[in-house]
């Protein structure tokens, strides 16, 4: 016989003791022996006292949950016995924390993303991994910020990968870190994956069928990374059942591991019902070296440009393309122009020329710099240059879907177009006339930095609009800067130090100097900035000291890695 339980008391209390009587002569559980203290003459007091008795009895008598299973994969978390991973030293962690504090945040993950990327990449090269307590905050940083993702991916270690598997958003960030290919530290990953490939594949297939959009995208990206053909077959198998939105979104992921083996599938997608899917397929086929799509684009464009000698000078002659036939429409040649300032034929010209691989123009017998310098007939120079700029932007994306420099031919084209002085109507949007920054992105890091240094030397520091785009180009250069750019930046700052007012350009440069001036190498930039602040104190000198301190902390971290290694 069980007595009055707490739930009984709740039931009585909810309707009132007057409506529902309470006979509390017996109490349930460990409080059973205590019912005698309850006062039967005052039901309300008895109810409350019984509640107190039962509450304390339940708290005191709490039983632990039994047979709690241990978390899976604890062995994977601690690495195989052979691969002892070394953690960052406590001093290195403190330096990271101070860099985070310098950014006004708390903890190591608050540091500037360029700094985190630099220092964690260096730590990864030194074979070090993050200490366990730092893993959650840096995994969060990798979720927030694509720039630090590969660097974090390289210092996770077995423990970090095990931890990331517990949280979908972390797992996605780790997948993406690997998909960029920079996180080459995949060796350890082979361990746990190899042991249970079959069960993983099965679990993956189930998740592919039942998962939500994000999970399925992550799965396909990962499948493409492991085995591009298997990933494509996974997509192909259920292709007809996907919605138009999902077809386009998933097709997008074939950019990982794109190869000639994907061509037939993509070519078929050109006939898809959904315009979004057709656009995506054209984009990928346009990236695929040697694809029939690119050959068709080259064939269509080649007759439109020629080089003719008129008098003493050579000219670039332009022929407008005719109405597109069905095959041209299938390949994306537009019938009408979306911009009021450009006629349908001119728009088609831009599109057809832009779709052609840049190598098409070798047939004209001139190098890129000579070609872009030619005068163009019929005032078509802006149209032709717009098309070439778009081609450079596309080839750059194709060379490296995550952004990054292209090959030597592409570099020549980008440099030639950047130095050409062709004016274009101001109202052309970037998808018609890609900005200089988009072309500069195709340059190798050192060439881009050299170009930025040249721009800096030519810039007037107090011209606000110049300051804006020059500093944007400097900031876009890979950090830490090579000496040529670092010295040019320092020169601008030194020049500014004689003035009490800080002009726009040096101010913008000082904001990134601390994270991007090299912390190692022949020249000690921290010392240069510190001396500058001491020699010519100005109202804005604290900016110099902050930058100098950041450089010193980075240098100390990198030195710590060397002593630890």
């Amino acid at each position, binding site marked *: 016989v069980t007595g009055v339980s707490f739930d009984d008391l709740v039931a009585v209390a909810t309707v009132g003791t007057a409506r529902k009587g309470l006979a509390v002569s017996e109490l349930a559980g460990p409080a059973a022996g205590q019912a005698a203290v309850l006062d039967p003459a005052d039901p309300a007091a008895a109810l409350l006292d019984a509640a107190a008795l039962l509450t304390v009895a339940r708290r005191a008598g709490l039983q632990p949950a039994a047979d*709690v299973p241990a978390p899976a994969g604890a062995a994977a978390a601690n690495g195989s016995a052979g691969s002892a991973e070394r953690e960052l030293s406590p001093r290195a962690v*403190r330096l990271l924390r101070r860099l985070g504090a310098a950014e006004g945040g708390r903890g190591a993950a608050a540091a500037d993303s360029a700094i985190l990327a630099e220092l964690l990449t260096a730590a990864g090269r030194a074979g070090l991994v993050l200490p366990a307590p730092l893993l959650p905050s840096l995994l969060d940083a990798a979720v927030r910020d694509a720039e630090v993702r590969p660097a974090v991916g390289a210092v996770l270690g077995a423990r970090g990968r095990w931890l990331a598997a517990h949280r979908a958003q972390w797992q996605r960030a780790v997948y993406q870190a690997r998909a960029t290919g920079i996180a080459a530290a995949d060796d350890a990953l082979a361990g746990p994956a190899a042991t249970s490939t079959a069960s993983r594949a099965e679990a993956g297939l189930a998740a592919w069928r039942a998962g939500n959009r994000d999970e399925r995208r992550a799965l396909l990206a990962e499948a493409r990374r492991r085995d591009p053909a298997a990933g494509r077959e996974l997509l192909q198998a259920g292709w007809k059942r996907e919605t138009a939105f999902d077809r386009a979104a998933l097709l997008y992921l074939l950019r990982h591991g794109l190869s000639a083996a994907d061509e037939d599938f993509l070519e078929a997608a050109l006939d898809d019902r959904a315009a979004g899917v057709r656009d995506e397929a054209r984009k990928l086929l346009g990236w695929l070296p040697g694809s029939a799509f690119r050959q068709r684009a080259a064939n269509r464009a080649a007759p439109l440009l020629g080089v003719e000698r008129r008098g003493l000078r050579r000219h670039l002659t332009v022929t407008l393309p005719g109405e597109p036939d069905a095959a041209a429409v299938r390949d994306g040649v537009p019938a009408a122009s979306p911009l009021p300032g450009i006629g349908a034929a001119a728009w088609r010209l831009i599109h057809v020329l832009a779709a052609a691989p840049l190598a098409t123009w070798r047939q004209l017998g001139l190098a890129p710099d000579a070609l872009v310098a030619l005068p163009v007939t019929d005032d078509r120079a802006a149209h032709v240059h717009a098309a070439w700029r778009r081609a450079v932007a596309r080839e750059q994306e194709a060379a490296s879907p995550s952004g990054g420099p292209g090959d030597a031919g592409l570099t020549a084209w980008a440099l030639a177009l950047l130095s050409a002085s062709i004016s274009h109507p101001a109202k052309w949007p970037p998808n018609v006339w890609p900005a200089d920054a988009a072309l500069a992105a195709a340059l190798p890091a050192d060439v881009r930095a050299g170009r930025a240094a040249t721009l800096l030397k030519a810039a007037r520091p107090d011209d606000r609009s110049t300051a804006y785009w020059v500093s944007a180009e400097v900031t876009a250069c890979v950090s830490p800067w090579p000496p040529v750019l670092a010295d040019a930046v320092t020169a601008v700052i030194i020049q500014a130090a004689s003035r009490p007012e800080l002009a726009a350009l040096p101010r913008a440069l000082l904001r990134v100097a601390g994270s991007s001036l090299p912390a190692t190498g022949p020249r000690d930039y921290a010392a240069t900035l510190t001396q500058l602040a001491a020699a010519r104190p100005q109202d804005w000198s604290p900016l110099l000291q902050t930058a100098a301190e950041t450089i010193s902390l980075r240098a100390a971290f990198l030195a710590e890695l060397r002593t630890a290694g």
Partner: protein
Amino acid sequence: VAGTLRGLSGLARGSDPAQEQWPARLLAEYGLLHLLARAHERRDALPAGLAAVVRSRVGYPVSRQDVLARPAVTGRWAVLAVRDLTDGAVPGRRVWLRESASGHWAMLLTFAAPNGAWQDPDTARLRPGTEIRADLHYYPGQPALRAVLGQRHDAGSPAEPGSADTPGAALRERPAPGRPDGDIEAMLTQWAAALEQDPWLTTWPVLLSGIPVPAGGGPGDKKPSDNKPSDTENGDQEAGGREAADAEPADRGGDGGTSGWQLADGAGNGLPLAARDSLWVLLAVSGGQPVTVAGEWHPDGLVALTTWHGEEVVPL
């Protein structure tokens, strides 16, 4: 008392699904308040220790001087956990100390003064992972827990190694956490014994070794589960009702939630862990292996406050 009542008024309003049982929580709290009121009426007839508990729970002021006049307990006190109480009307800080030889616990409490400083800066400055040699004076009441910091015997050695950048300085004070008091079963037995001395007790210090287990178990297998015990968390007397608020982050369940986690000991027993973002740090440090955890046990679950990564103390 006032703090508890403030916490209760929020109970019935709460829209959180976990608070659907608010009538039960409310009844439990009313029952305990009624018990306190009745005990207060009869306080002269109670044993001295219990009478002291009743006076302190009702809120009779005890001056710092009176506490300092009580016998000193001298020892090497390791700072095992620090908890900032941010939800109350006045921000507070609770510091859990454990005597290295005897294993006795003590809790120091200080609040922010109106000028933003701490009323007791020496207490507020204490950091987990440090150790002080000092006299503590316990407040009247049982079990002896709350105390004030009296005479220091360590020449005021800096208790803040965190800011030092030289490795030597940081190593100066880093005592081991001490041996856990036992497994979960033993801890719950101690908790029951403490409730016998103070039935209104809702905060109890814990030093355990265990494995944090996320809801649903292993990686990639997360099911939203809500196996929190139905018992109520009544804010303790100093900071009523605040636990409920910080134990429920917005992202309950699903991706990133930490509700339904447990701490499992070697005997296979599990204690519910109160949901907090920092449980991810605890999981990272554990790597699926047992770790030492210092924290506060509440009727709702264990609030993990400190763990140790090798020699290094990790505040959670």
